[in-house]
Protein backbone atom coordinates (compact mmCIF):
# COMPACT_ATOMS: atom_id res chain seq x y z
CA UNK A 1 0.00 0.00 0.00
CA UNK A 2 2.70 2.47 0.96
CA UNK A 3 5.31 2.95 -1.64
CA UNK A 4 8.01 3.03 1.02
CA UNK A 5 6.86 -0.38 2.12
CA UNK A 6 6.63 -1.45 -1.49
CA UNK A 7 10.15 -0.30 -2.06
CA UNK A 8 11.47 -2.34 0.81
CA UNK A 9 9.45 -5.30 -0.29
CA UNK A 10 10.65 -4.93 -3.84
CA UNK A 11 14.24 -4.52 -2.79
CA UNK A 12 14.11 -7.49 -0.48
CA UNK A 13 12.37 -9.75 -2.95
CA UNK A 14 13.97 -8.26 -6.02
CA UNK A 15 17.40 -9.55 -5.12
CA UNK A 16 16.12 -13.07 -4.64
CA UNK A 17 13.14 -13.74 -6.91
CA UNK A 18 13.01 -10.66 -9.18
CA UNK A 19 9.24 -10.94 -9.40
CA UNK A 20 6.32 -10.44 -7.03
CA UNK A 21 2.70 -11.50 -7.28
CA UNK A 22 0.77 -8.20 -7.22
CA UNK A 23 -2.59 -8.39 -8.93
CA UNK A 24 -4.75 -11.30 -7.85
CA UNK A 25 -6.99 -13.00 -10.41
CA UNK A 26 -10.23 -11.11 -9.56
CA UNK A 27 -8.44 -7.76 -9.96
CA UNK A 28 -7.05 -8.76 -13.34
CA UNK A 29 -10.35 -10.15 -14.55
CA UNK A 30 -12.13 -7.01 -13.38
CA UNK A 31 -9.57 -4.80 -15.09
CA UNK A 32 -10.16 -6.30 -18.53
CA UNK A 33 -13.94 -6.75 -18.19
CA UNK A 34 -14.12 -3.17 -16.99
CA UNK A 35 -11.97 -1.96 -19.88
CA UNK A 36 -14.26 -3.69 -22.37
CA UNK A 37 -17.38 -2.31 -20.65
CA UNK A 38 -15.91 1.18 -20.79
CA UNK A 39 -15.21 0.94 -24.51
CA UNK A 40 -18.80 -0.19 -25.14
CA UNK A 41 -20.17 2.52 -22.82
CA UNK A 42 -18.17 5.30 -24.44
CA UNK A 43 -19.00 4.34 -28.02
CA UNK A 44 -22.71 3.69 -27.43
CA UNK A 45 -22.95 6.69 -25.11
CA UNK A 46 -21.49 8.94 -27.79
CA UNK A 47 -24.11 7.75 -30.26
CA UNK A 48 -26.96 8.11 -27.79
CA UNK A 49 -26.17 11.82 -27.49
CA UNK A 50 -25.31 12.26 -31.18
CA UNK A 51 -27.21 9.52 -33.02
CA UNK A 52 -26.08 7.93 -36.29
CA UNK A 53 -27.64 9.10 -39.57
CA UNK A 54 -31.33 8.31 -39.89
CA UNK A 55 -32.37 4.76 -40.83
CA UNK A 56 -34.33 4.11 -44.03
CA UNK A 57 -37.50 2.04 -44.22
CA UNK A 58 -40.30 1.42 -41.79
CA UNK A 59 -39.91 2.10 -38.09
CA UNK A 60 -41.04 -1.45 -37.40
CA UNK A 61 -38.10 -2.83 -39.40
CA UNK A 62 -35.50 -0.96 -37.39
CA UNK A 63 -34.39 -0.89 -33.78
CA UNK A 64 -30.97 0.76 -34.03
CA UNK A 65 -31.31 3.22 -31.13
CA UNK A 66 -32.95 0.46 -29.13
CA UNK A 67 -29.94 -1.83 -29.62
CA UNK A 68 -27.45 0.95 -28.94
CA UNK A 69 -29.24 1.84 -25.72
CA UNK A 70 -29.52 -1.82 -24.78
CA UNK A 71 -25.77 -2.26 -25.22
CA UNK A 72 -25.17 0.87 -23.15
CA UNK A 73 -27.41 -0.28 -20.31
CA UNK A 74 -26.06 -3.85 -20.35
CA UNK A 75 -22.46 -2.58 -20.27
CA UNK A 76 -23.47 -0.11 -17.55
CA UNK A 77 -24.75 -2.92 -15.35
CA UNK A 78 -21.52 -4.85 -15.90
CA UNK A 79 -19.51 -1.72 -15.09
CA UNK A 80 -21.53 -1.04 -11.91
CA UNK A 81 -21.57 -4.63 -10.68
CA UNK A 82 -17.87 -4.89 -11.50
CA UNK A 83 -17.20 -1.78 -9.45
CA UNK A 84 -19.08 -3.27 -6.51
CA UNK A 85 -17.13 -6.51 -6.87
CA UNK A 86 -13.92 -4.50 -7.02
CA UNK A 87 -14.84 -2.68 -3.80
CA UNK A 88 -15.45 -6.07 -2.19
CA UNK A 89 -12.06 -7.27 -3.37
CA UNK A 90 -10.43 -4.12 -2.00
CA UNK A 91 -11.68 -5.29 1.40
CA UNK A 92 -10.77 -8.97 1.17
CA UNK A 93 -7.92 -8.87 -1.35
CA UNK A 94 -4.23 -8.08 -0.85
CA UNK A 95 -3.06 -4.57 0.00
CA UNK A 96 -2.39 -3.67 -3.63
CA UNK A 97 -6.11 -4.13 -4.28
CA UNK A 98 -6.84 -1.23 -1.90
CA UNK A 99 -4.60 1.27 -3.69
CA UNK A 100 -7.11 2.85 -6.02
CA UNK A 101 -9.61 3.38 -3.21
CA UNK A 102 -7.54 5.20 -0.67
CA UNK A 103 -4.77 7.73 -0.80
CA UNK A 104 -2.22 7.95 2.03
CA UNK A 105 -2.49 11.75 1.95
CA UNK A 106 -1.25 12.16 5.51
CA UNK A 107 2.03 10.46 4.70
CA UNK A 108 4.64 13.10 3.73
CA UNK A 109 6.90 10.40 2.27
CA UNK A 110 4.13 9.38 -0.12
CA UNK A 111 3.83 12.99 -1.27
CA UNK A 112 7.56 13.21 -1.88
CA UNK A 113 7.23 10.08 -4.01
CA UNK A 114 4.39 11.74 -5.94
CA UNK A 115 6.69 14.66 -6.71
CA UNK A 116 9.52 12.31 -7.55
CA UNK A 117 7.28 10.63 -10.12
CA UNK A 118 6.20 14.02 -11.44
CA UNK A 119 9.86 14.92 -11.96
CA UNK A 120 10.43 11.54 -13.65
CA UNK A 121 7.62 12.24 -16.11
CA UNK A 122 9.01 15.75 -16.68
CA UNK A 123 12.42 14.18 -17.56
CA UNK A 124 14.00 15.77 -14.50
CA UNK A 125 14.99 12.45 -12.96
CA UNK A 126 17.31 10.18 -14.84
CA UNK A 127 16.49 6.93 -13.10
CA UNK A 128 13.04 5.65 -12.28
CA UNK A 129 12.22 3.95 -8.99
CA UNK A 130 10.79 0.50 -8.44
CA UNK A 131 7.23 0.05 -7.30
CA UNK A 132 5.37 -3.16 -6.61
CA UNK A 133 1.89 -1.64 -6.95
CA UNK A 134 0.98 1.63 -8.63
CA UNK A 135 3.52 4.39 -8.46
CA UNK A 136 2.19 7.19 -6.20
CA UNK A 137 1.50 9.54 -9.09
CA UNK A 138 -0.46 6.80 -10.88
CA UNK A 139 -2.32 6.07 -7.66
CA UNK A 140 -3.33 9.72 -7.34
CA UNK A 141 -4.54 9.87 -10.94
CA UNK A 142 -6.30 6.52 -10.62
CA UNK A 143 -8.13 7.61 -7.50
CA UNK A 144 -9.56 10.84 -8.94
CA UNK A 145 -9.91 10.06 -12.63
CA UNK A 146 -11.05 6.50 -12.25
CA UNK A 147 -12.51 5.70 -8.83
CA UNK A 148 -14.21 9.00 -8.02
CA UNK A 149 -15.26 9.56 -11.61
CA UNK A 150 -16.55 6.01 -12.00
CA UNK A 151 -18.73 6.42 -8.91
CA UNK A 152 -19.98 9.71 -10.35
CA UNK A 153 -20.75 8.03 -13.66
CA UNK A 154 -22.64 5.23 -11.91
CA UNK A 155 -24.73 7.73 -9.92
CA UNK A 156 -25.54 10.00 -12.86
CA UNK A 157 -25.99 7.01 -15.17
CA UNK A 158 -28.44 5.21 -12.93
CA UNK A 159 -30.25 8.49 -12.24
CA UNK A 160 -30.78 8.87 -15.99
CA UNK A 161 -31.78 5.22 -16.27
CA UNK A 162 -34.33 5.74 -13.49
CA UNK A 163 -36.12 8.26 -15.70
CA UNK A 164 -37.05 5.45 -18.04
CA UNK A 165 -37.49 2.84 -15.30
CA UNK A 166 -40.06 5.15 -13.74
CA UNK A 167 -41.08 6.53 -10.36
CA UNK A 168 -40.91 3.94 -7.62
CA UNK A 169 -38.35 1.72 -9.39
CA UNK A 170 -35.31 0.82 -7.29
CA UNK A 171 -33.15 2.90 -9.60
CA UNK A 172 -35.41 5.85 -8.83
CA UNK A 173 -35.40 5.18 -5.08
CA UNK A 174 -31.61 4.92 -4.95
CA UNK A 175 -30.49 7.43 -7.56
CA UNK A 176 -33.51 9.57 -8.48
CA UNK A 177 -32.48 12.34 -6.10
CA UNK A 178 -29.42 13.04 -8.27
CA UNK A 179 -31.54 14.70 -11.00
CA UNK A 180 -32.92 17.64 -8.99
CA UNK A 181 -29.70 17.84 -6.96
CA UNK A 182 -27.61 18.52 -10.08
CA UNK A 183 -30.11 20.92 -11.65
CA UNK A 184 -32.44 18.83 -13.78
CA UNK A 185 -32.39 16.05 -16.31
CA UNK A 186 -30.72 18.00 -19.14
CA UNK A 187 -27.87 19.06 -16.87
CA UNK A 188 -27.34 15.47 -15.68
CA UNK A 189 -27.25 14.27 -19.31
CA UNK A 190 -24.60 16.89 -20.09
CA UNK A 191 -22.50 16.14 -17.01
CA UNK A 192 -22.68 12.41 -17.72
CA UNK A 193 -21.38 13.09 -21.22
CA UNK A 194 -18.63 15.34 -19.89
CA UNK A 195 -17.71 12.53 -17.48
CA UNK A 196 -17.36 10.21 -20.49
CA UNK A 197 -14.88 12.59 -22.11
CA UNK A 198 -12.86 12.93 -18.91
CA UNK A 199 -12.82 9.15 -18.54
CA UNK A 200 -11.66 8.71 -22.14
CA UNK A 201 -8.94 11.30 -21.64
CA UNK A 202 -7.85 9.35 -18.57
CA UNK A 203 -7.80 6.16 -20.66
CA UNK A 204 -5.44 7.84 -23.14
CA UNK A 205 -3.06 8.81 -20.34
CA UNK A 206 -3.42 5.43 -18.62
CA UNK A 207 -2.62 3.42 -21.73
CA UNK A 208 0.25 5.69 -22.70
CA UNK A 209 1.77 5.64 -19.22
CA UNK A 210 1.46 1.86 -19.01
CA UNK A 211 3.23 1.34 -22.34
CA UNK A 212 5.88 3.96 -21.60
CA UNK A 213 6.67 2.62 -18.13
CA UNK A 214 6.70 -0.91 -19.45
CA UNK A 215 9.51 0.18 -21.76
CA UNK A 216 11.31 2.79 -19.70
CA UNK A 217 10.91 1.87 -16.03
CA UNK A 218 12.56 -0.96 -14.16
CA UNK A 219 9.53 -3.20 -13.84
CA UNK A 220 6.88 -4.85 -15.98
CA UNK A 221 3.42 -3.24 -16.24
CA UNK A 222 1.25 -4.57 -19.05
CA UNK A 223 2.10 -8.24 -18.57
CA UNK A 224 1.53 -7.77 -14.83
CA UNK A 225 -2.13 -7.04 -15.46
CA UNK A 226 -2.34 -10.30 -17.40
CA UNK A 227 -0.23 -12.68 -15.30
CA UNK A 228 -0.39 -10.87 -11.97
CA UNK A 229 3.41 -11.04 -11.52
CA UNK A 230 5.53 -7.90 -11.42
CA UNK A 231 8.91 -8.61 -12.99
CA UNK A 232 11.88 -6.46 -12.03
CA UNK A 233 14.40 -5.81 -14.72
CA UNK A 234 17.43 -5.15 -12.58
Amino acid at each position, binding site marked *: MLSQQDMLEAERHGKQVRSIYVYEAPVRLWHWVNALAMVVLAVTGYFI*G*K*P*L*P*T*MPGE*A*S*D*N*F*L*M*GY*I*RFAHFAAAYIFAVGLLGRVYWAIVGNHHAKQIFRLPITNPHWWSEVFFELRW*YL*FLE*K*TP*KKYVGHNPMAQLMMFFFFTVLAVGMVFTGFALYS*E*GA*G*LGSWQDSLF*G*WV*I*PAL*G*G*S*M*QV*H*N*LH*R*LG*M*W*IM*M*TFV*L*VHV*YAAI*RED*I*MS*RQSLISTMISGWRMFK*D
Partner: protein
Amino acid sequence: MTETFYEVLRRQGITRRSFLKFCSLTATSLGLGSAAAPRIAHALETKARTPVIWLHGLECTCCSESFIRSAHPLTKDVVLSMLSLDYDDTLMAAAGHQAEAIIEEVKKKYKGNYIVAVEGNPPLNEDGMFCIHGGRPFVEVLKETCADAKAIISWGACASYGCVQAAKPNPTRATPVHKVITGKPIINVPGCPPIAEVMTGVVTYMLTFDRIPELDRQGRPKMFYGQRIHDKCYRRGHFDAGQFAEAWDDEGARKGYCLYKMGCKGPTTYNACSSMRWNGGVSWPVQSGHGCIGCSEEGFWDKGSFYDRVTDIKAFGVESNADTIGKAAAGTVGAAIAAHAAVSALARARTSHGQPEKQEEN
Protein backbone atom coordinates in the same frame (compact mmCIF):
# COMPACT_ATOMS: atom_id res chain seq x y z
CA MET B 1 -71.60 31.85 3.39
CA THR B 2 -70.26 30.00 0.34
CA GLU B 3 -72.71 27.69 -1.38
CA THR B 4 -72.62 24.03 -0.43
CA PHE B 5 -72.38 21.26 -3.02
CA TYR B 6 -76.08 20.53 -2.42
CA GLU B 7 -77.08 24.08 -3.16
CA VAL B 8 -75.03 24.03 -6.34
CA LEU B 9 -76.67 20.79 -7.44
CA ARG B 10 -80.14 22.15 -6.72
CA ARG B 11 -79.31 25.37 -8.59
CA GLN B 12 -78.35 23.27 -11.61
CA GLY B 13 -81.76 21.59 -11.62
CA ILE B 14 -81.06 18.34 -9.82
CA THR B 15 -84.00 17.26 -7.64
CA ARG B 16 -83.68 16.34 -3.98
CA ARG B 17 -84.85 12.83 -4.90
CA SER B 18 -82.01 12.42 -7.40
CA PHE B 19 -79.57 13.87 -4.90
CA LEU B 20 -80.56 11.32 -2.21
CA LYS B 21 -80.39 8.49 -4.74
CA PHE B 22 -76.87 9.64 -5.63
CA CYS B 23 -75.92 9.61 -1.93
CA SER B 24 -77.26 6.06 -1.44
CA LEU B 25 -75.49 4.84 -4.56
CA THR B 26 -72.21 6.43 -3.47
CA ALA B 27 -72.49 4.87 -0.01
CA THR B 28 -73.20 1.45 -1.52
CA SER B 29 -70.41 1.63 -4.08
CA LEU B 30 -67.95 2.64 -1.36
CA GLY B 31 -69.10 -0.38 0.67
CA LEU B 32 -70.24 1.79 3.55
CA GLY B 33 -73.77 0.39 3.97
CA SER B 34 -77.10 2.16 4.09
CA ALA B 35 -76.35 4.04 7.32
CA ALA B 36 -73.72 6.10 5.54
CA ALA B 37 -76.11 7.53 2.95
CA PRO B 38 -77.65 10.17 5.23
CA ARG B 39 -74.19 11.14 6.44
CA ILE B 40 -72.96 11.70 2.89
CA ALA B 41 -76.08 13.73 2.19
CA HIS B 42 -75.48 15.72 5.36
CA ALA B 43 -71.88 16.41 4.42
CA LEU B 44 -72.80 17.59 0.94
CA GLU B 45 -75.62 19.74 2.35
CA THR B 46 -73.46 21.44 4.95
CA LYS B 47 -69.91 21.38 3.70
CA ALA B 48 -68.99 24.62 2.06
CA ARG B 49 -66.98 24.48 -1.11
CA THR B 50 -63.31 25.23 -0.61
CA PRO B 51 -62.55 28.91 -1.11
CA VAL B 52 -59.66 29.68 -3.42
CA ILE B 53 -57.68 32.90 -3.58
CA TRP B 54 -55.84 33.24 -6.88
CA LEU B 55 -52.93 35.67 -6.66
CA HIS B 56 -50.95 37.11 -9.56
CA GLY B 57 -47.29 38.01 -9.12
CA LEU B 58 -44.69 38.56 -11.83
CA GLU B 59 -46.31 36.63 -14.67
CA CYS B 60 -47.81 36.89 -18.14
CA THR B 61 -51.29 35.46 -17.35
CA CYS B 62 -50.65 32.51 -19.66
CA CYS B 63 -51.60 30.19 -16.79
CA SER B 64 -55.00 31.89 -16.51
CA GLU B 65 -55.38 31.79 -20.27
CA SER B 66 -54.70 28.07 -20.20
CA PHE B 67 -56.95 27.44 -17.20
CA ILE B 68 -60.02 29.05 -18.75
CA ARG B 69 -59.69 26.71 -21.76
CA SER B 70 -60.08 23.52 -19.76
CA ALA B 71 -62.43 21.03 -21.43
CA HIS B 72 -62.48 18.14 -18.94
CA PRO B 73 -63.78 19.40 -16.59
CA LEU B 74 -65.08 22.61 -18.11
CA THR B 75 -63.67 25.66 -16.40
CA LYS B 76 -67.14 27.00 -15.69
CA ASP B 77 -67.93 23.85 -13.71
CA VAL B 78 -64.72 24.16 -11.73
CA VAL B 79 -65.13 27.84 -11.01
CA LEU B 80 -68.87 27.95 -10.50
CA SER B 81 -69.66 24.55 -9.03
CA MET B 82 -66.64 22.83 -7.56
CA LEU B 83 -64.63 25.47 -5.87
CA SER B 84 -65.41 28.92 -4.70
CA LEU B 85 -63.01 31.16 -6.55
CA ASP B 86 -63.40 34.07 -4.17
CA TYR B 87 -60.54 36.19 -5.43
CA ASP B 88 -58.84 36.38 -8.80
CA ASP B 89 -58.09 39.92 -9.85
CA THR B 90 -58.02 38.98 -13.55
CA LEU B 91 -61.37 37.20 -13.60
CA MET B 92 -63.40 38.89 -10.87
CA ALA B 93 -65.82 41.77 -11.36
CA ALA B 94 -64.88 43.65 -8.20
CA ALA B 95 -61.89 45.95 -8.20
CA GLY B 96 -59.91 48.21 -5.91
CA HIS B 97 -60.56 48.24 -2.16
CA GLN B 98 -63.68 46.12 -2.56
CA ALA B 99 -61.63 43.38 -4.15
CA GLU B 100 -58.81 43.54 -1.65
CA ALA B 101 -61.31 43.33 1.21
CA ILE B 102 -62.28 39.86 -0.02
CA ILE B 103 -58.82 38.48 0.77
CA GLU B 104 -59.11 39.73 4.35
CA GLU B 105 -62.61 38.32 4.66
CA VAL B 106 -61.64 34.85 3.38
CA LYS B 107 -58.58 34.81 5.59
CA LYS B 108 -60.68 35.53 8.67
CA LYS B 109 -63.66 33.37 7.86
CA TYR B 110 -61.87 30.30 6.52
CA LYS B 111 -58.68 30.44 8.56
CA GLY B 112 -56.59 27.40 7.76
CA ASN B 113 -59.17 26.11 5.34
CA TYR B 114 -58.67 27.89 2.04
CA ILE B 115 -56.34 27.31 -0.89
CA VAL B 116 -54.03 29.93 -2.33
CA ALA B 117 -53.27 29.51 -6.02
CA VAL B 118 -50.28 31.58 -7.07
CA GLU B 119 -49.62 32.54 -10.66
CA GLY B 120 -46.23 34.16 -11.12
CA ASN B 121 -43.65 34.76 -8.47
CA PRO B 122 -42.48 37.47 -6.08
CA PRO B 123 -39.39 39.50 -6.99
CA LEU B 124 -37.29 40.10 -3.88
CA ASN B 125 -34.82 42.77 -5.00
CA GLU B 126 -35.43 46.39 -3.85
CA ASP B 127 -37.72 45.09 -1.10
CA GLY B 128 -40.04 43.57 -3.68
CA MET B 129 -40.80 46.86 -5.41
CA PHE B 130 -40.71 45.29 -8.88
CA CYS B 131 -44.19 43.87 -8.42
CA ILE B 132 -46.85 45.92 -6.64
CA HIS B 133 -50.16 44.43 -5.65
CA GLY B 134 -52.84 46.82 -4.32
CA GLY B 135 -50.18 49.40 -3.49
CA ARG B 136 -47.90 46.98 -1.63
CA PRO B 137 -45.05 44.71 -2.68
CA PHE B 138 -46.46 41.42 -3.92
CA VAL B 139 -44.16 39.41 -1.67
CA GLU B 140 -45.88 40.91 1.40
CA VAL B 141 -49.36 40.14 0.11
CA LEU B 142 -48.24 36.61 -0.75
CA LYS B 143 -46.78 35.95 2.69
CA GLU B 144 -49.85 37.33 4.47
CA THR B 145 -52.33 35.46 2.33
CA CYS B 146 -50.47 32.16 2.59
CA ALA B 147 -50.06 32.44 6.37
CA ASP B 148 -53.50 30.94 7.10
CA ALA B 149 -53.89 28.81 3.98
CA LYS B 150 -54.46 25.06 3.97
CA ALA B 151 -52.34 24.51 0.89
CA ILE B 152 -50.71 26.48 -1.89
CA ILE B 153 -50.74 25.72 -5.60
CA SER B 154 -47.85 27.18 -7.59
CA TRP B 155 -49.17 27.60 -11.11
CA GLY B 156 -46.71 27.38 -13.94
CA ALA B 157 -42.96 27.63 -14.37
CA CYS B 158 -42.96 31.13 -12.79
CA ALA B 159 -44.32 30.12 -9.42
CA SER B 160 -42.63 26.71 -9.45
CA TYR B 161 -39.16 27.58 -10.74
CA GLY B 162 -38.96 31.27 -11.63
CA CYS B 163 -39.27 31.01 -15.43
CA VAL B 164 -38.10 33.79 -17.75
CA GLN B 165 -38.04 36.58 -15.18
CA ALA B 166 -35.69 34.47 -13.07
CA ALA B 167 -33.44 33.62 -16.05
CA LYS B 168 -29.89 34.86 -15.77
CA PRO B 169 -29.09 37.50 -14.62
CA ASN B 170 -32.48 37.72 -12.89
CA PRO B 171 -32.36 41.48 -12.24
CA THR B 172 -35.45 41.57 -10.04
CA ARG B 173 -34.45 38.42 -8.12
CA ALA B 174 -37.70 36.74 -9.05
CA THR B 175 -37.99 33.78 -6.67
CA PRO B 176 -40.16 30.67 -6.80
CA VAL B 177 -42.98 30.52 -4.27
CA HIS B 178 -41.60 27.54 -2.33
CA LYS B 179 -38.45 29.49 -1.54
CA VAL B 180 -40.48 32.29 0.02
CA ILE B 181 -43.27 30.39 1.74
CA THR B 182 -42.27 27.60 4.09
CA GLY B 183 -44.16 25.28 6.39
CA LYS B 184 -47.17 24.86 4.07
CA PRO B 185 -47.90 22.10 1.59
CA ILE B 186 -47.01 23.52 -1.82
CA ILE B 187 -47.98 21.85 -5.07
CA ASN B 188 -45.82 22.80 -8.03
CA VAL B 189 -47.66 22.65 -11.34
CA PRO B 190 -44.91 23.69 -13.78
CA GLY B 191 -45.22 24.45 -17.46
CA CYS B 192 -45.34 27.63 -19.44
CA PRO B 193 -48.30 27.44 -19.12
CA PRO B 194 -49.38 24.16 -17.56
CA ILE B 195 -51.92 22.14 -19.55
CA ALA B 196 -55.46 23.34 -18.80
CA GLU B 197 -56.69 19.87 -17.84
CA VAL B 198 -53.71 19.38 -15.57
CA MET B 199 -54.64 22.58 -13.74
CA THR B 200 -58.30 21.73 -13.34
CA GLY B 201 -57.33 18.11 -12.62
CA VAL B 202 -55.18 19.15 -9.67
CA VAL B 203 -57.96 21.37 -8.32
CA THR B 204 -60.59 18.66 -8.81
CA TYR B 205 -58.46 16.10 -7.01
CA MET B 206 -57.95 18.39 -4.05
CA LEU B 207 -61.64 19.17 -3.74
CA THR B 208 -62.84 15.62 -4.25
CA PHE B 209 -60.47 13.89 -1.86
CA ASP B 210 -59.83 16.85 0.44
CA ARG B 211 -56.11 16.26 0.33
CA ILE B 212 -53.22 17.23 -1.89
CA PRO B 213 -52.20 14.81 -4.64
CA GLU B 214 -49.12 12.64 -4.20
CA LEU B 215 -46.05 14.69 -5.06
CA ASP B 216 -42.63 13.79 -6.43
CA ARG B 217 -39.24 15.06 -5.22
CA GLN B 218 -39.79 18.43 -6.86
CA GLY B 219 -43.26 18.89 -5.40
CA ARG B 220 -45.08 18.07 -8.64
CA PRO B 221 -48.20 15.88 -8.73
CA LYS B 222 -46.99 12.41 -9.75
CA MET B 223 -50.11 11.73 -11.77
CA PHE B 224 -49.26 14.43 -14.32
CA TYR B 225 -45.49 14.83 -13.93
CA GLY B 226 -44.47 11.23 -13.24
CA GLN B 227 -43.24 10.53 -16.75
CA ARG B 228 -41.28 12.29 -19.43
CA ILE B 229 -42.72 13.58 -22.68
CA HIS B 230 -40.41 11.03 -24.36
CA ASP B 231 -41.94 8.07 -22.47
CA LYS B 232 -45.38 8.58 -24.01
CA CYS B 233 -44.43 10.31 -27.25
CA TYR B 234 -46.17 8.90 -30.31
CA ARG B 235 -42.89 9.37 -32.25
CA ARG B 236 -41.00 7.18 -29.77
CA GLY B 237 -41.07 4.30 -32.24
CA HIS B 238 -38.98 6.35 -34.65
CA PHE B 239 -36.52 7.16 -31.85
CA ASP B 240 -35.99 3.50 -31.02
CA ALA B 241 -35.68 2.68 -34.72
CA GLY B 242 -33.05 5.38 -35.16
CA GLN B 243 -35.17 7.44 -37.54
CA PHE B 244 -34.65 11.16 -37.06
CA ALA B 245 -35.50 14.42 -38.74
CA GLU B 246 -32.08 15.95 -39.53
CA ALA B 247 -33.42 19.29 -40.78
CA TRP B 248 -36.75 21.07 -40.49
CA ASP B 249 -37.53 20.50 -44.16
CA ASP B 250 -36.07 17.07 -44.86
CA GLU B 251 -37.91 13.87 -45.66
CA GLY B 252 -37.68 12.68 -42.06
CA ALA B 253 -39.44 15.82 -40.85
CA ARG B 254 -42.21 15.30 -43.41
CA LYS B 255 -42.59 11.67 -42.40
CA GLY B 256 -42.94 12.63 -38.77
CA TYR B 257 -39.66 11.11 -37.57
CA CYS B 258 -38.28 11.72 -34.10
CA LEU B 259 -37.14 15.30 -33.44
CA TYR B 260 -34.35 14.28 -31.03
CA LYS B 261 -31.56 15.52 -33.30
CA MET B 262 -33.39 18.83 -33.72
CA GLY B 263 -32.98 19.42 -29.99
CA CYS B 264 -36.30 18.06 -28.72
CA LYS B 265 -36.27 18.19 -24.92
CA GLY B 266 -38.86 15.42 -24.59
CA PRO B 267 -36.33 13.00 -23.03
CA THR B 268 -35.54 15.46 -20.23
CA THR B 269 -38.96 16.97 -19.61
CA TYR B 270 -41.59 15.78 -17.16
CA ASN B 271 -45.09 16.71 -18.27
CA ALA B 272 -48.31 15.21 -19.58
CA CYS B 273 -48.29 16.83 -23.06
CA SER B 274 -47.71 13.60 -24.98
CA SER B 275 -50.59 11.82 -23.26
CA MET B 276 -53.12 14.63 -22.63
CA ARG B 277 -52.15 17.02 -25.42
CA TRP B 278 -53.42 20.58 -25.67
CA ASN B 279 -56.58 22.48 -26.48
CA GLY B 280 -58.91 19.66 -25.62
CA GLY B 281 -56.61 17.05 -27.12
CA VAL B 282 -56.28 18.71 -30.54
CA SER B 283 -52.48 18.70 -30.78
CA TRP B 284 -49.24 19.39 -28.96
CA PRO B 285 -45.80 20.73 -29.92
CA VAL B 286 -44.23 17.49 -31.22
CA GLN B 287 -47.40 16.63 -33.14
CA SER B 288 -47.20 19.99 -34.88
CA GLY B 289 -43.61 19.27 -35.91
CA HIS B 290 -41.54 21.18 -33.36
CA GLY B 291 -39.51 19.62 -30.57
CA CYS B 292 -40.40 20.07 -26.95
CA ILE B 293 -38.58 23.06 -25.42
CA GLY B 294 -38.79 21.69 -21.89
CA CYS B 295 -40.93 24.52 -20.49
CA SER B 296 -41.90 22.57 -17.38
CA GLU B 297 -38.28 21.94 -16.35
CA GLU B 298 -36.41 24.02 -13.82
CA GLY B 299 -34.48 26.91 -15.35
CA PHE B 300 -35.24 25.89 -18.93
CA TRP B 301 -34.27 29.34 -20.22
CA ASP B 302 -30.74 28.85 -18.94
CA LYS B 303 -30.16 25.31 -20.18
CA GLY B 304 -28.79 26.13 -23.61
CA SER B 305 -30.39 26.18 -27.04
CA PHE B 306 -33.83 24.74 -27.70
CA TYR B 307 -32.36 23.26 -30.88
CA ASP B 308 -29.31 21.40 -29.55
CA ARG B 309 -29.28 17.91 -28.14
CA VAL B 310 -25.97 18.25 -26.31
CA THR B 311 -26.45 21.65 -24.72
CA ASP B 312 -24.14 24.04 -22.93
CA ILE B 313 -23.18 23.26 -19.38
CA LYS B 314 -23.42 26.43 -17.38
CA ALA B 315 -21.70 25.36 -14.25
CA PHE B 316 -18.37 26.23 -12.66
CA GLY B 317 -18.30 29.32 -14.89
CA VAL B 318 -18.03 27.11 -17.94
CA GLU B 319 -20.28 27.89 -20.84
CA SER B 320 -19.58 25.24 -23.39
CA ASN B 321 -21.04 21.87 -24.22
CA ALA B 322 -19.68 18.52 -23.14
CA ASP B 323 -18.48 17.58 -26.63
CA THR B 324 -16.54 20.81 -27.12
CA ILE B 325 -14.85 20.51 -23.74
CA GLY B 326 -14.29 16.78 -24.14
CA LYS B 327 -12.81 16.91 -27.62
CA ALA B 328 -10.56 19.82 -26.62
CA ALA B 329 -9.37 17.95 -23.51
CA ALA B 330 -8.83 14.65 -25.34
CA GLY B 331 -7.10 16.47 -28.22
CA THR B 332 -4.80 18.45 -25.96
CA VAL B 333 -3.92 15.44 -23.85
CA GLY B 334 -3.44 13.33 -26.98
CA ALA B 335 -1.03 15.90 -28.43
CA ALA B 336 0.77 16.15 -25.09
CA ILE B 337 1.14 12.37 -25.03
CA ALA B 338 2.58 12.33 -28.55
CA ALA B 339 5.10 15.02 -27.61
CA HIS B 340 5.94 13.28 -24.33
CA ALA B 341 6.42 9.98 -26.15
CA ALA B 342 8.78 11.64 -28.64
CA VAL B 343 10.84 13.24 -25.88
CA SER B 344 10.86 9.95 -23.97
CA ALA B 345 12.18 8.12 -27.01
CA LEU B 346 14.91 10.72 -27.48
CA ALA B 347 15.88 10.61 -23.83
CA ARG B 348 16.04 6.85 -23.90
CA ALA B 349 18.11 6.83 -27.06
CA ARG B 350 20.54 9.30 -25.51
CA THR B 351 20.96 7.41 -22.21
CA SER B 352 21.40 4.04 -23.89
CA HIS B 353 24.09 5.51 -26.20
CA GLY B 354 25.81 7.51 -23.50
CA GLN B 355 26.00 5.07 -20.61
CA PRO B 356 25.09 1.57 -21.65
CA GLU B 357 22.51 -0.23 -19.49
CA LYS B 358 24.30 0.48 -16.22
CA GLN B 359 21.82 1.79 -13.68
CA GLU B 360 22.78 2.36 -10.11
CA GLU B 361 20.88 0.65 -7.34
CA ASN B 362 18.98 2.79 -4.90
